[in-house]
């Protein structure tokens, strides 16, 4: 249940080690690592600038994390999101969910990423040969997030 918003890179192996340390009730950890790509919509990306809303970012990530823990029996969770200038290949985000069983870990990690994509206040500006360009939100991200609320309705 840790949330971190930072300029610096993170060490996935060390974070996993810390997450699971001493908790032998954990049977599986699902992780997602987002990386900067060098192409988007046919354009070459030299780098990207990640702007965010300090204060709200942490609050919103905590809300998403709390909702994941309400929905699934999780032993541990972790969300790290970087901001600032990032080059292709660099790590942007890490989401991890640890549970006794793998289905809960997988679903919670996927849920966290889907909601982070549509609710956490980050904005990407890509450096392309034609200049800086704000990334458009993708409708597929809204679709991905909405399937979790459908699941909830179906379960009621």
């Amino acid at each position: 249940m840790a949330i971190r918003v930072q300029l610096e890179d993170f060490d996935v192996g060390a974070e996993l080690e810390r997450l699971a340390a001493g908790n032998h009730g954990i049977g599986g950890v699902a992780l997602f690592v987002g990386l900067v790509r060098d192409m988007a919509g046919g354009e070459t990306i030299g780098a990207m600038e990640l702007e965010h809303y300090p204060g709200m970012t942490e609050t919103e990530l905590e809300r998403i994390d709390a909702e994941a823990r309400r929905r699934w029996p999780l032993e541990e969770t972790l969300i790290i999101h970087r901001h600032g200038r990032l080059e292709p290949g660099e790590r942007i985000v890490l989401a991890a969910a640890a549970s006794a069983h793998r289905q809960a870990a997988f679903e919670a990690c996927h849920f966290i990423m889907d909601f982070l994509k549509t609710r956490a206040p980050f904005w990407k500006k890509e450096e392309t040969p034609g200049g800086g360009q704000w990334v458009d939100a993708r409708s597929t991200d809204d679709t991905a997030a909405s399937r979790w609320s459908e699941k909830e309705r179906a379960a009621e």
Partner: protein
Amino acid sequence: MKILYFAWVREKAGVSSEDVSPPAEVTTVGALMDWLGGRGGGYTEAFSDRKMVRVAVNHAHVQADHPIAPGDEVAFFPPVTGG
């Protein structure tokens, strides 16, 4: 009331934050957008396509009918693209 702007809304408005005192009849987020955008120049441009502007009041996502009060922190920004 503290106003914050992010990403291209910030670039269009030309400022990242400002302190404003809207008139008493501005009681909702929607009315605030009308009033802020009505000041002309970059502000008008920032709010010209209202469907593309998202709002948070005191760090929580809200809709245009959400009420606002003098001590609030209100932020305007495009749909988020993190992750």
